């Protein structure tokens, strides 16, 4: 299948002159992790929640309203054409920190293909093909419901952990990921030190078993806008991530 034949969501974009608060508003209210950036009528790059969180290392001390989209947008992005094979797109969107790929026709942006779009499109192919245990990752980052928000922010910004499963003893309480974090970073800085993870966690006790169908994991990820689902077997065994599912999907297409 070619990219032009995929069903994807409408483009939601941001102007390069807007500030980060504007960009985050658009991301949250449209459920996008990445936005294409336009400089006037011209496509100029992308901005992502993940990129913003990572760039906070360099912009510490600056308020979101003082940072322009043009300052932190990614200009060196890889694009595809309408006639690119979907398999190539899967390779691109599953690279580390890459969640979507712009599709250009000439210089014109005609669509953005995201991990979500690919997963939604090919969900029927996954059904009955694999169990969660076949694709899950056993390396899972764990935090406690009693951790401070500051400590979780630090772990995600500074480390390789993009999703932290939050536990209350042996019970899963939810997952903190980039989007939860960025929402918090719009808060008054003085408030963060008094907040615990419990204050910002959207309760989500959905877990999977290794024997569950991988399509079930994909449905939860799409429905709940989370990048992964914890896998339990009495205790926490691991996590099944959107990236794991797409990489497996690639081999059956």
């Amino acid at each position: 299948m070619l990219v032009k034949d995929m069903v994807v969501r409408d483009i939601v974009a941001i102007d390069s002159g807007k500030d980060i608060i504007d960009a985050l508003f658009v991301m949250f209210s449209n459920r996008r992790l990445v936005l294409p950036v336009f400089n006037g009528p011209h496509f100029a790059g992308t901005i992502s929640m993940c990129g913003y969180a990572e760039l906070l290392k360099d912009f510490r001390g600056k308020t979101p309203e003082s940072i322009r989209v043009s300052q932190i947008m990614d200009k060196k992005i890889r694009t595809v054409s309408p006639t690119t094979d979907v398999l190539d797109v899967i390779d691109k969107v599953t690279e580390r920190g890459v969640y979507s790929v712009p599709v250009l026709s000439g210089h014109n942006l005609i669509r953005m293909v995201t991990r979500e779009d690919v997963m939604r499109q090919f969900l029927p192919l996954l059904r009955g093909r694999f169990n969660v245990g076949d694709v899950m990752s056993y390396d899972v980052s764990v935090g406690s419901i009693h951790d401070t928000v500051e400590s979780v922010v630090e772990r995600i910004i500074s480390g390789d952990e993009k999703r932290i499963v939050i536990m209350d003893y042996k019970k899963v309480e939810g997952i903190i990921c980039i989007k939860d974090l960025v929402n918090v970073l719009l808060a008054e800085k003085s408030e963060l030190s008094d907040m615990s993870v419990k204050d910002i966690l959207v309760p989500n006790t959905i877990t999977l078993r290794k024997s569950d169908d991988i399509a079930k994991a994909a449905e939860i990820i799409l429905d709940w806008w989370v990048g992964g689902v914890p896998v339990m077997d009495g205790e926490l065994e691991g996590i099944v991530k959107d990236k794991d599912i797409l990489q497996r999907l690639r081999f059956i297409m």
Partner: protein
Amino acid sequence: MANPKRILVVDDELSVAKTVKFILDAEGFETQIVFSGEESLKKLEKEKFDLVLLDIMMPKMNGWQVFEEIQKRHPKQAVAFLTVIKYSDAVREKLEKEGLAGYINKPFDNDDLISRVKSITSD
């Protein structure tokens, strides 16, 4: 006697939603509660409310999405966020420009909740 002002509370936490309802009903408001953004949109198709009190951090459809959708479908509907996160002044100013009628922090003081809801619904 004037009709009571109608409030729709949208919060996935049952205890919070019930507490808000209890406080506001005791003040003479007519309060209804729903537990998700999807439910609130269905409710707004059928009934009119003077104010929607909207939690931000909800599963599936988050408060920001619900706010955007309400603005599209019912541009005149007053919406206030009900949230644990105390956003910075700059964020709050932008939200007001975007059409947000107010902002109430959780946990809330009863009197503060009542006065803010009264203030918004009296406009």
